[in-house]
């Protein structure tokens, strides 16, 4: 058996970071980060238990607004469904959530299915406008805003994590390289730096 190691959908991240270390002169307009510790668990409430699940986990039940706690963030996907993200391990997160909601719902691990890109920096909103059809102006949305949308022909789960602004973009793993190709090409006009979190 070969030596065991898991592989990121973007491949060798250290090599990737070296290849894209810094684009553009002066202070970068965009800070790109690849979140390697972003466990994702999809959470479903059973029929009629939507509010119970929301209460048990102290989740925001209304659409388009994330609920954040110390240990995790829940992004509403549809009535009774959330994508819960956390820096802890996916197994632990899933177990913890299932324990809290008991028989009121189900959890399904999605951490391996998604890659999370974080976009920050002074040109973050301009970069988003190159691909995102949604109105992300500060007069419209702020920290906590989340939506499922499409950027560069790829489905994206979008979460605004700060008013700065900064955004987390969750894309399906299979599309991660294509999406990064578009993202890095488009970000180059603003100048960018890249790291992993």
């Amino acid at each position: 058996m070969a030596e065991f190691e898991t592989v990121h959908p973007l491949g060798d991240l250290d090599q990737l970071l070296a290849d894209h270390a810094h684009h553009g002169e002066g202070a970068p307009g965009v800070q790109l980060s690849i979140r390697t510790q972003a466990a994702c668990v999809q959470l479903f409430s059973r029929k009629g238990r939507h509010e119970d699940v929301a209460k048990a986990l102290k989740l925001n039940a209304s659409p388009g607004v994330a609920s954040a706690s110390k240990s995790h963030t829940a992004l509403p996907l549809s009535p009774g469904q959330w994508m819960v993200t956390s820096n802890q391990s996916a197994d632990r997160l899933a177990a913890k959530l299932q324990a809290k909601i008991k028989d009121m719902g189900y959890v399904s691990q999605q951490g391996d299915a998604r890659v999370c890109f974080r976009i920050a920096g002074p040109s973050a909103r301009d970069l988003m406008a190159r691909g995102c059809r949604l109105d992300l102006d500060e007069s419209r949305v702020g920290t906590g805003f989340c939506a499922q949308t499409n950027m560069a022909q790829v489905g994206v789960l979008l979460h605004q994590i700060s008013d700065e602004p900064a955004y987390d973009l969750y894309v399906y793993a299979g599309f991660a390289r294509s999406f990064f190709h578009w993202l890095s090409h488009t970000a180059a006009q603003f100048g960018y730096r890249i790291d992993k979190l």
Partner: protein
Amino acid sequence: MTGVNRVSVGGSRIDRSKEVRFTFDGQSYTGFEGDTLASALLANGVTLMGRSFKYHRPRGCLTAGSEEPNAIVELRSGARREPNTRATMAELYNGLDAQSQNRFPSLKFDIQAINQLLSPFLTAGFYYKTFMWPSSFWEPVYEKFIRKSAGLGKAATQADPDTYEHSHGHCDVLVVGAGIAGLSAALSAGRSGARVILVEEQVAAGGMTSTATDFIDGKPSDEWVAQALDELAGMANVTVRTRTTLFGYYDHNVLAALERVSDHLEVPEAHQPRQRLWTLRAGQVVLACGSHERAMVFDNNDMPGVMLSGAVRAFVERYGAAPGKRVVVCTNNDDGYKTAASLHKAGVEIVAITDARAEPSPAAKLATAAGMKVQCGVIPHKAKGRHRVSAIALQRTDGSSAEIIECDCVAMSNGYSPDVHLVSQTGVAPVWREDILGFVPDTPIRKERSAGACKGTFELNACLQEGHQAGCDAAEAMGFGSGDPGSAGTADEEEITAPLALWRCPGKGKAFVDFQNDVTAKDIQLAHQEGFVSVEHAKRYTTLGMATDQGKTSNVNGIALLAEARGEPIPDVGTTRFRPPYSPVAIGAFAGHERGMEFQPVRRTAMHACGEKLGAVFVEAGQWLRPQYYPKPGEGVMEAIYRESEQVRKTAGICDVSTLGKIEIFGEDAGEFLNRLYINGWKMLAPGKARYGLMLREDGYVFDDGTTSRLADDHYFMTTTTANAARVLAHMEHASQVLWPDLDVHFCSATEQWCGVAVAGPNARAILAKAFGDAIDISNEELPFMGVREFKWNGATARIFRISFSGELAFEVNVPWSYGEAMWDAIWDAGQDHGLIAYGTEALSVLRIEKGHVAGNELDGRTTAADMGLGKMMSSKKPFIGQKMAARDGMIDPQRATLVGVKLKSGASRLRGGAHLVADKNIANAETSLGWITSVCDSPAMGCWIGLAYVRGGLSEHDGKILYAANPIYEESPAVEICSPHFFDPKGERLHG
């Protein structure tokens, strides 16, 4: 000083301290930074800039903007060569290389100018009349001739080295046009607090206002404009985008604009696109896009040096470039006098001003007082000259002739047509206003309003007020009524006197209406005579209003002449309906990033690198890339496929099957839900077991198939075909949300959470046992056929399914994405002592054809379950989607084509998919076709080419018979034997091994 015609006054857009060198038709010139190609050429005394489309007449620029019909040139060279750009819009940069078009051998001497002699035959409808007979000439002769004659310029043949991108913008108020009205609207809306985007096609704001004559708030208009821009720049809620053309106005206030990010540079700066296509979503729109001056229609009005009056003014004021040294201004309205004032201020000699109106207007009196020679009741008759106007023959409006004046420039103004293109795109039909001789927007349909010249308002004060009010109203409509919009500027101006209608100055020569398409006044009369009386028909017949300028300077003249011919008032003729784009947009801008690598996103599996390492050749399966086959050195495609499929049955093979759609299904009613989705029963499926399922569309045809496993009482795991993964999920969402919202069922895609391999062949169990060791017992007893188990492997949850697509002893193993390469490597290493090979989608297909398993080729959306031989799977004990529709007469017709196998007997070296099966190979046509071959392969197991096919009457009628696989493309009709589709191991003994 660069250029013989450069004047020291004016030139607001140029930097006289920065000289720029450029070439036109190989000749070097010098201009200033800020010049356009047209202004720099004019400054250098060059007026001949192109040849007309049909008659190859010499042409100079008519306008100073995007509506230019004449000065159409090729810019740049090599891969960046761009034909049909307007010299009036091309901003000068050092090294700019421009070529004239549509001439041979040179611009000054163009052989095809002989067309002018043939002009009596080249009238409207020439092509339609001439190239009709004989019809056998259409393609081989006429098309070639027309293609050679038609079209302007040459596109680059190399790939465009520049990039283009898309962007999205949102605002409360979108203001289109940064002229006086547009600036005024942006100011009031911005001050009210609304989020404003102001787009301006030109590089600078200010529109048609004249720095020589227009004063706002007591200062020259350009100072007011600069102040307005400063104020707008200081507002965080306002964005101003110049070099940005709003070209499309679509439903729901979605608009499209093209930003020319780098067109003014030799090459784009690093990482910058050449152009950016904006999709703008606006709460309210203020259209302040101005108006287009009309040409006077007189003989030889297309001669270089004969230009629109506003353009002459623009060249002088913006670029300090005088189009001539001795100018005659011919006008029918007051705007001509603004040009005269501007020229006068710049020190250019104004030989005469002719005004079609009999009485001098206040503007005329001012000009006279300034010492200019004004002739009222006089209009042009004919321009004289060869490559440039040298004199203008005048005539009186009473028909008598007047003097001939020597000049090198005629500045003509036949009034202004409000720019109603964008509002027309919203569906608003423009209405005629006789007082201004122009069409103006009718009541808005969308959330938009017009202001300024595009609404027929030409007085400066009124433009300021109207723009201000439009900005206030738009902001208020978006909830910003309480903000302080400030007040509108005030202009000092004389009263404007109405223009005089002058649609054709009497004459017998060529008087052009549409310069770009060489449409003369006579052509319009001819079109009418020949029955093209509708404005839309006349447009198509004469080509009036087509091409890059979209008739901006010509439409109203043409409509008026058609009205005259019809003997009806202009409003009864109406306008054509304008459609996007407002001005040309490069295909590259529409494509944006979506070309080359980014044409479509590529989806890679977790084990892509494993395939690469083994030398896989990849194939696109939708957006996925899948290993198609793994050639050994020196091995051809067919040999590789043959070897792989043979080896799987001999020892074992591993195949990346990660692309199959995977869906996790939870809920108390999940079993019931599956029961309703699939045609077969699911309630009795025990946890730990998998089952093959087939689902129909609502219309009863087969939709998709795959295996679904029960992992727990209320947890199932479905697989779909690669192609239908997203469609099946959407189908389930519809069923769950709309059809049966009462069911407790929840699901999500897990396609990328899990990656998977199939390990098939007699040695599969031994290999997996070695790879996974104690982690899982996969003996036949513990994991029988169609059994499913979850287990932990290196800390991750893994799933193993005892299912087989190949007909061999086979397993599919799923692990989380990040474990994919590790799993592949573990199995690969374990398999090296057991003859394990990697196989791709081609061998996978061979193996399933040998087993008679249907796949994408057979699930083509036209087949029923019974057609595939799976009719007995349809449960009669429960309802399911598609059940009723599948029972329609046509769906259960015994004569339907059903699945059979075919074996190649003779007549060709191979079988081909798509061939039609016929009884008599000499009579192969649609009527004699009995069916068609769907999938073929060179089968190692059968030792010959075999295939699957649908044949009317199926096996019951044709078993053992010989039919012919007619393929007219390859001109072959090999003999095939019809047989059972289950070629190999029909009893399924191997997969139970």
